[in-house]
């Protein structure tokens, strides 16, 4: 029973991903683009996941500033890491698709450029986290950046509407039903993958914090026995 409770999300993710993969390879090919269009079943869900992850980062950042509960900081950081990975995947899948369809890997197209910059915005967020040693200061500074960085999300999303470009605008209503179902299944599968990765990363982040606190407390006194190092465990008191 405990095993089921612990791994139900993973099991569900595996099933849905398997179903999505099966569907992606067996659904009829696009009339115009042929098999290369199947890359969209990875590209679109990756982009969706990146948006989702960064919105969760913003929510975690706001919640940390309001509550100072370390869980929210862990949520923001973990979600940003996953978001960066899937932004990279979305860009990569888009480039692979663009080569045969547009004739080149990269074009100076608003959605591409804004997505690449979104990638760098959150790389900056992660770099900021690495640059601050104190966990409370790190959470505080990262939370501010997590909120400000979210300004970029609507710009990426609406870029294809604001600037007329090569990139396909939102096409929810113009896709054939079997392809739309496959795409939605892909989105669902990637959302489950996100939930699994997020849960694991949160556990890992919690363990990292405990390890960091223990190492800090085990370190020898830096200024003699008269001065003791502050306890990082206190910073985790809200856990």
């Amino acid at each position, binding site marked *: 029973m405990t095993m089921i409770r612990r791994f139900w999300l993973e099991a569900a993710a595996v099933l849905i991903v398997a179903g999505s993969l099966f569907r992606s390879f067996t659904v009829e090919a696009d009339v115009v683009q042929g098999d290369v269009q199947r890359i969209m079943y990875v590209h679109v869900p990756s982009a969706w996941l990146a948006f989702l992850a960064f919105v969760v980062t913003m929510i975690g950042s706001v919640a940390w*500033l309001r509550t100072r509960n370390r869980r929210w900081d862990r949520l923001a950081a973990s979600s940003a890491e996953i978001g960066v990975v899937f932004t990279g995947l979305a860009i990569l899948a888009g480039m692979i698709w663009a080569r045969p369809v547009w004739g080149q890997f990269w074009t100076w197209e608003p959605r591409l450029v*804004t997505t690449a910059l979104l990638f760098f*915005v959150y790389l900056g967020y992660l*770099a900021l986290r690495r*640059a601050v040693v104190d966990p409370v200061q790190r959470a505080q*500074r990262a939370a*501010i950046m997590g909120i400000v960085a979210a*300004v970029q999300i609507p710009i990426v999303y609406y870029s294809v509407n*604001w*600037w007329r470009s090569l990139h396909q605008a939102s096409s929810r209503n113009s896709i054939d039903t079997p392809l739309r179902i496959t795409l939605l299944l892909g989105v669902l599968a990637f959302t489950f993958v996100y939930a699994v990765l997020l849960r694991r990363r949160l556990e890992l982040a919690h363990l990292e914090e405990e390890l960091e606190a223990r190492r800090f407390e085990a370190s020898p006194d830096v200024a003699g026995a008269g001065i003791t190092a502050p306890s990082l465990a206190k910073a985790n008191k809200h856990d």
Partner: protein
Amino acid sequence: MTFWRQVYEIARKDLLVESRTAEVALMTAPFGAAALIMIPLAIGTDAPLLTDLGPGLYWIVVLLFGILVILRKSAVDGGPQRDLVRLLGIDPAARFTGATIATSLLVLLFEVALGPVLVALYNPDLRGWPWLFLILPLVAIGMGLLGTIASGVTTSLGTRTSLTPLLVVPLALPLLLGATQAFEGLQLGGSIVPWLVLLFAVDLALAVSGILASGPLEEAVT
């Protein structure tokens, strides 16, 4: 002391320090002008090409070299200075607003200083130039806001000079797009209102975020 009086004093302090060192006027602006002189040597000195590319290159130089305005010495308060301002009971929001005003004015100065260089070297089409009185301050305010937020979160970090540009440049994308597209719109005789709205909306979003975050920002560097 009222809120706006605090804002005035903080901005005045930053501008006073800047006036003593003249870092923006005597170092950053000539550096940006040198970049505008050197770029044609790399991309070609064809006059029509430079006329087309000039405004875009100008905004790129403003954005990238504007980082140096953000990182200037007068924008950095040491620990004792921060403690003194805190002990004086200065409202964090007033401090943020004052620092933003000072940085924005200096970015505007930088933009204005590079303007004649652009006109002289690139001979751009200046149709609808009065709109620049609106575009330049909107970009300067955006850069000032971004710079003050990024400087705040990187204060006292060893990697500040590397990290601040990484945080500011990608986030300045809407400013760059708004400015370049508005400029292009002027040349083509089209409407630039949507781009001005974009610049204004970004400035507003950053101002609200910055003011709300000013308290936590103050705590973060304690």
